């Protein structure tokens, strides 16, 4: 099973921060916020915010839980547990970077945008992710992906992060 290891993920995060500083920040209108999609995207967002701070750039940080906005809720027998979103600012006139772990069908990103617009009207929203594994079912593309994988259809691409899973890698 192909694996991307912890060191490679760390390297990718540094490249991601460079992209943010060189492309996203200069294009941002209003203040910039990094908003993680709970749970794994949120861990990535916090790491990006820390790395940006270490590089001298202070971005706002937020986290959103998209569970209540999923389009398949009524199809599921068990309702997923909920987490509290954390958006300590109004997104009005800000640039928001939505951070997801694995971008696949695009349905999560659609739900995330619906969440954001219920808090306010950002001037710009970007979708950035650690892994783009393709197989989109909606017309949504990430603005940035640290890894682009061409895994066979129905392959499960899984990110594990030390903070949540006790180990750190991407398997597919």
């Amino acid at each position, binding site marked *: 099973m192909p694996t991307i290891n912890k060191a490679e993920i760390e390297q990718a995060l540094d490249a991601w921060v460079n992209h943010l500083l060189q492309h996203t920040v200069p294009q941002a209108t209003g203040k910039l916020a990094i908003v993680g999609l709970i749970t794994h995207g949120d861990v990535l967002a916090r790491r990006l915010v820390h790395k940006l701070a270490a590089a001298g750039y202070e971005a706002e940080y937020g986290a959103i839980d998209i569970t209540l906005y999923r389009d398949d809720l009524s199809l599921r027998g068990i*309702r997923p547990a909920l987490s509290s979103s954390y958006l300590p600012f109004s997104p009005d006139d800000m640039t928001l970077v939505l951070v997801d772990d694995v971008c696949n069908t695009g349905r999560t990103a659609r739900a995330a945008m*619906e969440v954001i617009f219920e*808090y306010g009207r950002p001037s710009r929203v970007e979708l950035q992710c650690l892994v783009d594994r393709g197989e989109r079912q909606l017309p949504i593309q990430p603005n940035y992906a640290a890894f682009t994988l061409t895994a066979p259809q129905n392959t499960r691409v899984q990110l594990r992060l030390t903070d949540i899973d006790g180990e750190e890698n991407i398997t597919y």
Partner: protein
Amino acid sequence: MNPRKDLITIDSLSDEDIRTILDSTSAMKEIFTKSVKKVPALKGKSVLTLFYEPSTRTRSSFEVAAHRLSADVTTFTVSTSSVVKGESVHDTIDTLMSMKMDYIIVRHKNSGIPAVIARHCKASVINAGDGAHAHPSQAFLDAFTIREKYGDVAGKRVVIIGDILHSRVARSTSTILRRLGADVAYMGPGPLVPQEQHTGIPRFTDWEQVFRWKPDVIYLLRVQNERMDTPFFPRGDYHQAFGVTEERLRRIDDLNLSIMHPGPVNRGVEICDAAMDYRNCLINNQVENGIAARMSILYHLTPQTQNND
């Protein structure tokens, strides 16, 4: 939590179910801070409130909860319905099921009616109070309010004061609080407080015993007017004997205790005016948390009404 169609009693829930519903209540409450206080989780679902007993706050709390989850809400008003013309509960349910309801919220003066309805329909049934039996959504909002105030329910001491014997609130709330590790005691007029040997819950009949027990929360029950002026409840004496008087409020304040009440409050009976403005009076928190708790309950139940059957 495991898939669950109905919520009839707290006893029917596992510890994990209770924790899951409480945890999701926090997430639901966070929705109230958004500019759009609504989520699409139950979009396209139909919720019916079926109240055979008068209720303002429980019914409107469930209705607000359902609206905030984007469900469509229908209110079935018994006093203007066929029920007063003699229609049986079963026939009413058949009629309502033909309307393809997904969730039915029931209050009835007889214990067990919500369970009967639940057995006969595919919709999720939530017991919003049946006789002196159970009122599980009240239990969740009470447990959540205590958890929010103190960080945890475990280890807290809650004394429930009033007509315990006829109170579904006392039954459900004491059950959930004890399941979560709180200590519960009862206090009230002697004939209306069950013996400890039957409940395992300490039984007091005056305030001095209550203060000696060192509670964290004083939970007052509503004095039900229909039971007033019976031999159990000499109205004029209730406030002096069992109510939070201004003098007792000063002691409660000194000891930094919280006051809770399921509402509606009878001022001058269970509670003096000043206590309503007391800094640790959690009654308004209970109302707000009631909406969040009921959203969480609606969200976690799964009706078997898929495929339009």
